[in-house]
């Protein structure tokens, strides 16, 4: 069955919310290159051409003992008991059953398709700071849509690990809300064969988001983030990495919407492309008229390991306020020959030296993970991933 069918399936007659969503979706159709956000990823074609592949086994975070919730093939499989029975943290989580909601106005086709077809998702309020990270795993080998809604109440602090390792094509939607003064750390890592993931994260006053997103592997992975800095004093730190090899197509879209004054955002991306892989990073900062004293930086870098690899970057600014400090830059280059020679001159063989330099480049994203145990797991995984896949 062509993957495109996962979007064009009939909705239950009686389900008016889903049907309404499906109508919105059908009216727009899947995004094509004419849609600015999807300029580099012609989704219908990619879906048509995608072949089922083996995917890598993901980073195993078991050693940091997270609360772990598993969705397999789009439906909840495991983990709530684990949350409910959590000693000391009983009062941290409040889960409600999944139910589709009417779409917001101007919903995108991806959102609408997701709403129309998602059968399940995590609907969670975090009412107290949990003592351990929460991991949400996406697994399975059939095509599916899935939709999560997470709310962090005021003052709550949590680490969310998003493990996206389904070999079936999937379309994941996240709505995340951070209450006043809430702090969320996200570590997300993708391996999916054909994966579309969208997250909208809204930050109230003084809320802080620290997000590290890795596309480790995957034939076609599209990761889109909309960060809404809606309350004064909200800060978002968004660090991203793409590791493309083979014929991978990895597309990241990261938009910081500054709605309120005294907000800041940092968008960093370090991308490594090898073989004939294609990487895309589109960063965008939008500053609303009343959002004065905004500080926004964007820095996109790519390391090209092969002449046939491709990287497209487009840092954009859309500023309607006048007292704003925005900086952006993009650099694309090869492995640094001087650094390579230096390491060799210090006795490190060329192959190892290359790997070290690639890892060092990605390390600048990994290093922003504050919690050491998680950081070390990511570091080790990436080192061995580079050792296995780099043509170096």
């Amino acid at each position, binding site marked *: 069955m062509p993957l495109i069918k996962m979007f064009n399936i009939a909705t239950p007659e009686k389900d008016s919310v889903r049907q309404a969503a499906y109508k919105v979706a059908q009216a727009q159709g899947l995004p094509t290159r004419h849609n600015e956000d999807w300029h580099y990823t012609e989704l219908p074609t990619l879906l048509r051409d995608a072949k089922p592949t083996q995917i890598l086994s993901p980073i195993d975070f078991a050693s940091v003992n997270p609360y772990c919730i598993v969705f397999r093939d789009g439906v909840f499989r495991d983990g709530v008991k684990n949350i409910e029975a959590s000693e000391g943290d009983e009062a941290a989580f409040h889960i409600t059953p999944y139910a589709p909601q009417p779409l917001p106005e101007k919903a995108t086709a991806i959102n609408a398709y997701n709403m129309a077809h998602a059968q399940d998702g995590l609907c969670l309020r975090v009412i107290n700071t949990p003592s351990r990270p929460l991991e949400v795993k996406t697994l399975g080998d059939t095509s599916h849509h899935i939709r999560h809604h997470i709310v962090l109440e005021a003052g709550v602090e949590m680490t969310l690990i998003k493990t996206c390792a389904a070999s079936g094509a999937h379309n994941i939607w996240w709505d995340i809300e951070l209450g006043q003064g809430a702090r969320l750390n996200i570590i997300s890592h993708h391996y999916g064969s054909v994966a579309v993931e969208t997250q909208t994260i809204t930050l109230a006053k003084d809320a802080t988001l620290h997000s590290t997103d890795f596309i480790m592997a995957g034939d076609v992975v599209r990761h889109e983030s909309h960060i809404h800095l809606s309350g004064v004093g909200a800060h978002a730190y968004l660090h991203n990495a793409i590791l493309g090899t083979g014929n991978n197509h990895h597309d990241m879209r990261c938009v910081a919407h500054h709605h309120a004054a005294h907000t800041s955002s940092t968008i960093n991306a370090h991308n490594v492309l090898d073989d004939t892989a294609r990487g895309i990073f589109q960063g965008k900062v939008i500053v609303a008229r009343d959002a004065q004293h905004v500080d926004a930086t964007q820095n996109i870098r790519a390391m090209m390991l092969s002449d046939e690899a491709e990287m497209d970057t487009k840092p954009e600014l859309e500023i309607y306020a006048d007292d704003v400090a925005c900086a952006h830059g993009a650099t694309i280059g090869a492995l*640094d*020959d*001087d*650094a390579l*020679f*230096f*390491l*060799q*001159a*210090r*006795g*490190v*063989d*060329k192959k*190892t*030296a290359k790997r*070290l*330099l690639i*890892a*060092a*480049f*990605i*390390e*600048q994203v990994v*290093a922003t993970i504050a919690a050491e145990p998680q950081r070390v797991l990511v570091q080790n995984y990436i080192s061995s991933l580079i050792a296995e896949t780099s043509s170096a």
Partner: protein
Amino acid sequence: MSLIEIKDLHVNVNGEPILRGINLVIKGGEVHAIMGPNGSGKSTLSYVLAGRDGYEITKGSIAFMGQDIAALPPEARAHLGMFLAFQYPIEVAGITNMTLLKTSYDALRKARGEEAMNSAQFLRLVREKAAALQMNDDMLKRQLNVGFSGGEKKRNEILQMVVLEPRFAILDETDSGLDIDALQIVAEGVNAMRSPERAMLVITHYQRLLDFIRPDYVHVLVAGQLVESGDAALALKLEAEGYAAYQNV
């Protein structure tokens, strides 16, 4: 036995002849200094000894401890005990000084068939050597040369040298950028390494360094050729008279 034996070495860079017939023999225990005007080929010589790509030997030979090393990659030369302190130390974000030192140290030990040293023991060793160069723990934890001042970078090169304990070290203008006190500290580090089995090639523009690191021989490199050799007194003469006398050679 001589550690390094360079015979009639001709080197092209980008098709241009840069070194034009260098002859130099350095024995264990010796310190040789090379002085010469900008662009005369001093760094080129250091790179070609260390094995950098893009330096084409068109004629002549380089032997290190009796072995022709012209075809060896840089790491193989390092394994034999060659060390180059860079004129322009490079920065690598994402690798800490400590990681670099451990990686290099382990690579050298492995090449010699020795076991890797355990981390705690190695840390102690590095701390001790760093302290002698007046570098603190904080600097060890920082990313390689990132945000280091010019002088700190040079000191860092010397730290790598004293930790790795090479048999033959080339110091390419290590003194440039060092303040007077740092120069003395670095020179002490270098002098402590002098031994009958080791040799050094010190490239410098300033006679002052040679007050601290007394060379056995001083050579003048002009336009890719060693045009004069002598003892430490030659450096004093160069300091006073410059290179004008050699320019028409």
